């Protein structure tokens, strides 16, 4: 009996997979090929920025939606990735010179932290690995002591403030508050802000988003993903089942940090500058609300939420700059109280059925599988519908 339903479920899963793959391909074609040719360059840059933010949101969904760890400090990893790439771009100058801003502070020699960033491959590696390791380390120091929940959240927030202070205070190393500009730098002898380079970065962003989405799908679909959910639901039980939750939490937090690093790098080149202000407390909490709006634990919701909130923000903060904060504050309150499962969660649990009933379709019923197969029940149903 149960075998039959098992096969049915498998078939359905396969069909859904094909549908999903189709949707993704279509979206990629629209976003990466059609969109760049129809909208102006500055708008494209804006959308590119949103898409890179959607990448961080995926990372946050991984740790918050699936593992139940609310990080309020993802700005750290975002900034680390951004700074890594910005340092590389700032080093694209004639040999023997050092970036201009060093003159302001009387620094004559390139600080040692800059040295590895001459090479592009090392930079690309670093913008994934450095944030990943930073996240892993913070995670390890916190999780190994079983600090969790709200404590973890406010510790990440404090860590964020610490990094913010550190980057602001170190003028002689990374130009302090002024940050690093990337627009006028050159990459492969092309100016970074030129339309062609920006379009390339845009396409890279779209591809990265898809790849990272697939990575997250893979991570969350198998045993590993189920274990993450298990940790979220009942960590003690996981421990008594013979798993060490610390290792899993550290790994998933590190992955999430690395994802934020990639996002930060892509965001930086499409903004033109990175400053420590990217590590302001507000920005990191905003990242969480994107996921909350879309629906946590759904991945697609993270992307959707980011795009919606950022588009709304662009529109509203242009039209009502003074009271924009009211809107944002209200958004936090409303999402948490009225829409706790986000848009995607609402859609799957309520909206879809509502739409079906509007279209005059029967609502889909979930019952015990044994009921579906029980001939008596079937007979009864038939009689009921005939009456």
């Amino acid at each position: 009996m149960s075998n039959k339903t098992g096969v049915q479920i498998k078939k359905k899963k396969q069909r859904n997979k094909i549908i999903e793959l189709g949707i993704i391909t279509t979206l990629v074609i629209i976003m990466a090929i059609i969109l760049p040719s129809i909208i102006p360059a500055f708008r494209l840059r804006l959308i590119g920025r949103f898409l890179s933010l959607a990448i961080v949101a995926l990372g946050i969904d991984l740790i918050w939606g699936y593992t139940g760890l609310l990080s309020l400090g993802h700005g750290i990893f975002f900034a680390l990735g951004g700074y890594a790439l910005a340092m590389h771009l700032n080093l694209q100058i004639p040999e023997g010179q050092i970036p201009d801003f060093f003159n302001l502070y009387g620094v004559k020699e390139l600080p040692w932290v800059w040295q590895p960033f001459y090479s592009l491959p090392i930079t690309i590696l670093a913008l994934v690995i450095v944030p990943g390791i930073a996240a892993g380390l913070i995670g390890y120091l916190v999780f190994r002591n079983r600090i969790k929940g709200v404590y973890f959240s406010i510790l990440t927030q404090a860590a964020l403030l610490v990094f913010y202070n550190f980057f602001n205070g170190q003028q002689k190393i990374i130009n302090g508050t002024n940050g690093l500009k990337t627009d006028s730098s050159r990459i492969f002898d092309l100016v970074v802000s030129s339309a062609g380079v920006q379009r390339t970065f845009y396409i890279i962003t779209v591809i990265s988003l898809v790849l990272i989405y697939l990575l997250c799908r893979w991570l969350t679909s198998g045993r590993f993903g189920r274990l993450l959910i298990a940790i979220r639901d009942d960590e003690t039980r996981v421990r008594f089942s013979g798993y060490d939750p610390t290792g899993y939490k550290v790994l998933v937090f590190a992955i999430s940090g690395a994802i934020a690093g990639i996002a930060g790098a892509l965001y930086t080149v499409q903004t033109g500058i990175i400053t420590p202000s990217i590590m302001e407390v507000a920005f990191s909490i905003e990242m969480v609300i994107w996921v909350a709006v879309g629906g946590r634990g759904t991945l697609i919701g993270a992307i959707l939420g980011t795009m919606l909130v950022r588009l709304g923000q662009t529109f509203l903060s242009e039209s009502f700059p003074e009271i924009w904060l009211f809107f944002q504050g209200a958004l936090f309150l409303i999402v948490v109280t009225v829409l706790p499962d986000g848009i995607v969660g609402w859609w799957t649990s309520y909206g879809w059925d509502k739409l079906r009933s509007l279209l005059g379709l029967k609502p889909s019923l979930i019952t015990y599988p044994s009921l579906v197969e029980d001939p008596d029940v079937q007979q009864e149903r038939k009689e009921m519908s005939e009456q």
Partner: protein
Amino acid sequence: MSKILEIEDLTVSFDGFKALNNLNFSMNAGELRVIIGPNGAGKTTFLDVITGKVQPTKGRVLFKGRNIKKIPEFKIARMGIGRKFQTPRVYLNLTVRDNLDLVSNQNKNVLSTLFGRANNNETRTVGGLLETIGLDTKANLSASLLSHGEKQRLEIGMLVAQSPDLLLVDEPAAGLTDEETENVGALLLSLAQSHSIIAIEHDMEFVRQIANDKVTVLHQGALLCEGKMDEVQNDPRVIEVYLGETPD
């Protein structure tokens, strides 16, 4: 017969309050031991110490001859101690099958969980267990949809999937109907054929059903008496702590 669990002079104190006081205890491999005792006797703390959740203040716990002091919980679990909690604790947002699959995973380190898939052996274990606990028709339902009794059975199934040598069961009959209680009792008895089990219970009917071996009575953190069920039942000290009076 070899001892699976030996406890010597165990004392656990919280801020001076002794939850367990110089407790000595031992049980043989393959035994089903029932532990009873009035509230505050230290039954749950007893399990906490064995599973590594609480560290002993004094004394030691030997599992299969090995001292488990300072070994983290997950390693103790891997050594072969499984624990069922008082209220059923299953992963509500996973399906019944996934619940069992997670526990049956033989290699529980991070990387093999990430890259590994269930092998045939594990799939078969899960399938067999689903039948044993009578939940095979609900295998693909999320565990949050199960009734209280079904959750109890699922959790016992998860324990078995872990294939431990020693099962610790904390009040398995709490909150169950008479019929369900009897089911759980039968399940425990059948498990006892291949596992060592410590069961903590309040329900005397249930204790009578499952106590074929020895029964241990705890009182105020120490061992009060130990023996067959009918011996224990007629022991004047036991009657005193349970009823608060000495028989004439």
